[in-house]
Each structure stands twice: as C-alpha cells, then as structure tokens.
C-alpha cells in the first residue's frame, strides 16, 4: 500500500507544537492539556466520536479560535502572533460542508484561492489546471458551484485548499506548510476516495503536513502515517495506525465493542 517511505528519510522538521492546550466550545471544555507535535511531511488522521472536539481543535490549530490556555507554536513562532494574511501562505483549511449561497463558477473559486499569491496568469492557470486534473474536476471548471453534487463540491473545495498552499514554482518543497481537512471524503464515491487519498499521500511526500479529520478509519489508515484518537478530553492514542488502532483504544474512543482484522501487510481494518 501507499506507505510514505520518504517521510522517514525527510527531516522531522517540527511544524506545529501544542503545549497544554485546552479546547473550549462555548462553555463546554472539550479537550484539556493537549500536547501534540506535528511534523513536516506527515499525513495525520484525527478520529474520535461525534462532538469530541475534532473540528474545534482544527479551528484552534487553524488560528481562528483564541487560545484559552497553553501555547501553540507554528514554525517556532506563537500562532497568535502571525497575522491571518501571513498565515494564509502556510496554512489552508477545508471546512466541513463548505458552500456558498452565491453561484460562483468552479474556476472562479479556484482562482480566489490564489488571490494572495503574486504570479503570472499563465502560471496560475497552469497550476489550477494541474490540480483540477489531479482531483478530476477539469470537466466541472465552468460549472456553477451550486449545481454540483456533494462529492463534486467536496473535491472543488479540497482543490481550493491545496491551491492556497502551492508555491509559485512547482519544484519548491511544501515543507513548513499545513493543510487542515475536516472530513474531506465524506461524500466521495470509492474511485474518488482512492484518488483523493493517493493525491494527499503524494503531497505529504513533498513535505506538506496534512491533518485530516475522518470517521472512515478503514479508508484513511492504510494511507496515513500517524493516527490520533481523541477521547476522554484528550488524546488516547498517537501512533502509526496499526499500533494506534486496538480493540481497547477503539472501545474507549467510540464506547462500543469493535473488532479488528489484519491483512498480510499488517494493515488494520475495523469491523463491527
């Protein structure tokens, strides 16, 4: 399977450090004293039961929610001290069920993603064309975003998030950049699930750090390099997926009895 071998050889450059971070939504404390380190080139899956704070954690890491307690270092700097405009060069977010009440055309949305980047129009079109091809949305470019199906829209917004981070020069590495995804594959069919996973792995091989919230453990675990399970107001497992997924951690995480199947390549699959 598409295990990222390059990641091991690539320097474990620290990208994001969470020190004793609390995540609070309204008046409810969702996560407390969280300590995590995200490195360049990692493809991290974030899982946990509904309402355990996955999305709220993403808003905190994304720099939109003010930090109540603890410290958050992005490339060695406190995240709150990096302006939103600067942060947009290094961190992109695909929100859950992203949409707009206005009928933008797909290519307009993709162009908006690069509004902060100074580049020639040819270069911009080339990069957009490349990503559109990789995520199989070339045929949708002139369509109204509101007329797309859920899965098509998801691929467009995923492409938009990635386009925000891609450097002008396609050869330069993606080390130091962070992509946060909130259930990017929830509406995709099998072919596009596989396509998206493969593209994400190839991006992480170029140095991009990806944090992906997902409920589809079986889809993401063969591809991701690390799996984090959130439960009991904290992180109960943070390891390679085959080590993180055990009957015990799954029971603590989802409060139900689940079974595991292992294949010859030691990939783990969760079943009922």
């Amino acid at each position: 399977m598409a295990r990222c071998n390059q990641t091991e050889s690539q320097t474990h450059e620290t990208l994001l450090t969470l020190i004793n971070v609390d995540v609070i939504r309204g008046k409810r404390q969702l996560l407390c004293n969280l300590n995590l380190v995200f490195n360049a080139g990692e493809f991290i899956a974030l899982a946990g039961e509904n309402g355990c704070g996955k999305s709220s954690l993403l808003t905190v890491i994304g720099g939109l929610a003010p930090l109540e307690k603890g410290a958050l270092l992005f490339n060695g700097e406190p995240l709150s001290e990096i302006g939103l405009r600067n942060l947009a060069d290094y961190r992109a977010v695909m929100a859950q069920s992203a949409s707009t009440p206005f009928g933008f055309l797909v290519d307009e949305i993709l162009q908006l993603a690069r509004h902060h980047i100074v580049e020639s129009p040819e270069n911009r079109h080339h990069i957009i064309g490349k990503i559109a091809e990789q995520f199989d949305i070339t045929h949708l470019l002139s369509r109204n975003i509101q007329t797309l199906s859920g899965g098509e829209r998801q691929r467009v917004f995923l492409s938009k998030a990635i386009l925000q981070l891609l450097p002008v020069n396609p050869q330069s590495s993606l080390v130091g950049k962070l992509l946060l995804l909130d259930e990017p594959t929830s509406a995709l069919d099998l072919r596009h699930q596989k396509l998206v996973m493969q593209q994400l792995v190839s991006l992480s091989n170029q140095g991009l750090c990806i944090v992906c919230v997902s409920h589809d453990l079986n889809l993401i675990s063969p591809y991701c390099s690390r799996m984090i399970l959130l439960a009991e107001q904290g992180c109960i497992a943070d390891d390679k997926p085959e080590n993180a997924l055990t009957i015990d951690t799954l029971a603590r995480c989802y409060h139900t009895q689940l079974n595991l199947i292992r294949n010859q390549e030691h990939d783990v699959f969760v079943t009922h």
Partner: protein
Amino acid sequence: MTASTSTHDSATSSPLAKASPTKPRVTNNTLSKKMQKHNASAVIVNLLVTRAKRKQHGLALLGAMLLLSVYVGVVSGSLSINVGELLWHELSQLTGQFFSQGALIEESGANRQATPLGVSTTFNSTHWYVLTELRLPRVIMTLFIGALLAVSGCAMQGLVRNPLADPGLIGIAGGAAAAAAVSMAIVPPLVPALASVWVALWAFGGALLSVWTVLRFANSAQGVSVATLILAGVAINAFTGTIIGAISYVASDDALRQITYWTMGSLAGASWTICALVAAAGVIAITGLMVSRNALNLLALGENEAAYMGLNVARYKQIILWLVAFAVALATALCGIIGFVGLVVPHMCRTLFGVNHNVLIPACALMGALLLTVADTLSRTLFTPMEIPIGIVTSAIGAPFFLYLLWQQKGVFNGSL
C-alpha cells in the same frame, strides 16, 4: 472537454483541444498525458478569454444604453428640448465671431422653417435654462443615486451572504424617515440659514444614528455578527416605523402630506450643489467597494473561509458597512426612500454577469444608473405635467420583477437558504 469544444471560437484555443474529440484514444501514454496537461490549462484559458470578452461586451452594451437613457431623460419632460439645436445655437453664439455670416443665416433660416411661428431665438434661453439648471443636474444626480444604491445593495448582499439583503436592512431608510418625520412635524428649522437643508440634515443624522445602533448590537469581541445585524436591523426598522406612525397620527394635515411625499422619494429637488454632493458620495462608495471587491468575493464564501484565506474579516466588514451607510444615508437624506433598486439590481446583474464582484460591482453601478434614469424619465413623462414619486415607480417595476426572479429561481432558493 465539453467546455473546450463549446468555446472553440476563442483565439487562443489550442489545436490539441480541438483535435482530441476526433481522436478518442491515443495509445502512446506519454503523448496522451502531455495532451491532458495542455488541455487542462487550455480549458481554463479558453473559459476566461471567452467569459471576459462576453462580460466586456455586456458592460459596453449597458454603458451605451445608459448614455441613450441619459439623452432621452434630458430631452423629454413636460418641455421637450432639442439638445442638438440648443447646443449648436449656444456654440454659435459663443464662437459667433469666428463663424462666417453665411452659416449663421443658414442656421436661423433652418430654424424658421422647422418652427413656423418663428420664435426660435426667444424660447432658446428658456430651454437652455431648463436644460442646464433643471434637467442636467437631475439626470446626473439620478444616475449617481441609482449607481450608489445598486452597488451598496450588492455589497450588503455579499457581506451578509443573504441574497435578500439591501441597505435598508441595517436601518438606514427607517432611521432617515423617522428623523425626517420628526423634523417636519415637530422640530421646525431652528437655524434659519439651514432651512432649505433642515429635513435632509435630520434624515442624514437619523440614518447614521440607526446604523450605529444596529452595529452596536451586532459588534462583539469576534467582530460583527451577521445574524445579530439582521435581527437588530429588523428591530430598529420596526421601532422607526412606530415613530413615523405616531408622528403621522398627531401631525397636521400639511406635515402629514409632507411626510408621505418624503417617504415616497423624489428627485425633483436636484441642483448642481446636491448633484455634486451625491456624485462625490457615489464616487467614494463605488471606488471603495471596487477596491474591496476581492474581500467581498472572499466574504461570499463565508467569514471563516475568508479568514482562513488571509482576509482581515473584521476590518473589511467595518469598512464596507460604513461606506454603504454613509453613501446610502446621504442619498436617502437628499431624495427620500427609493426602494427596490438596491435589492433588485444586484440580482439582475448576477443572472447576467455572474457573481464575481470584479464584474458585478461595475455592472451594478451601470445597471442601477440605467434603471433609475429610466424610472425617473417615466415618472416625469407618463402623466405630464404631474410627476409620480420615484419610489412608486421603482417599486412598481421592481416588485413584479422580483417576484418573477423568485419564480424563476424557486429551486435555487430552496436549496441555498
């Protein structure tokens, strides 16, 4: 692929994109990959070139129609004016000494033939006065007010991500009307020098006061909350409605009549001074919103999304809101409430030009100017010498048209709101 074939008329269309449908399978793998790469960029370039061309043509057409409507607006009215003849006459008077005597004689001869009574030289001065002191300032002011209202409506809809929003939403019209009613019925001009602009001053103050109140409610530590903004706007509008109702109840017949006329809007008070004020406000608002067009595009995707994409959301929301508030408050103070332009014009432009604010804002400016000029010309000429209040004309055109739009987009609105 379908897109590339449909846009094959564009000059930059690549031969590869055209050839590919006829050759469905290319066995050489590297070649087909290369073709695909070419195709994807070519598709985008084709799309952009044809779209940009179409939109430019659309804007040019709008501009031409606007010029035509301005011309019609200037010549028609209770006194119809032959602008060409007048201009020629003035020109020849100004530069009379440089013209040969023969040309002047020929000209006046032609005039006499056209008007058998032979009064052309005497009534020209009246016509000249009507043209330069009444018609021109009125038409130009109308144009700027239309553009300003439409652009403001477009910005409000983009900002609150609600296609049913208009500048009245944040209490501008309500506040202005309530303050105007107070000034007309209760507080007579205290400073004699300000008598002519007394009502306008009150209306301007009232509009800004109600916007400020609405924003006080909507502002929180996280910035302006759009949901609170809309709800506070509804509450303020209800409150100002009560004030107007109460004042109307106690007001004298004269004041009541004044209040009613004011709320129906009128462009009749135009003069070059008022025209200059409105033009300045219009230019500032349109330029300011044009500068923040990228911010409006990002905000249309959602506030969090815009922030993730690097926009200082709080700052731009304040800028856009106050630009709209000042411009519309001024327009309302000077001309009363002119409904529906801010609501309907952005919708018309979205269906014609797409939702990208790069094109939408200039399109709204042109379309708003065009529609209000046409509406004003109609209001002056339909039942001459009586003049229909402009607010009635715009609502009479706007409301059915808006219903038609809603009918057309039934499915769309169900899905998105």
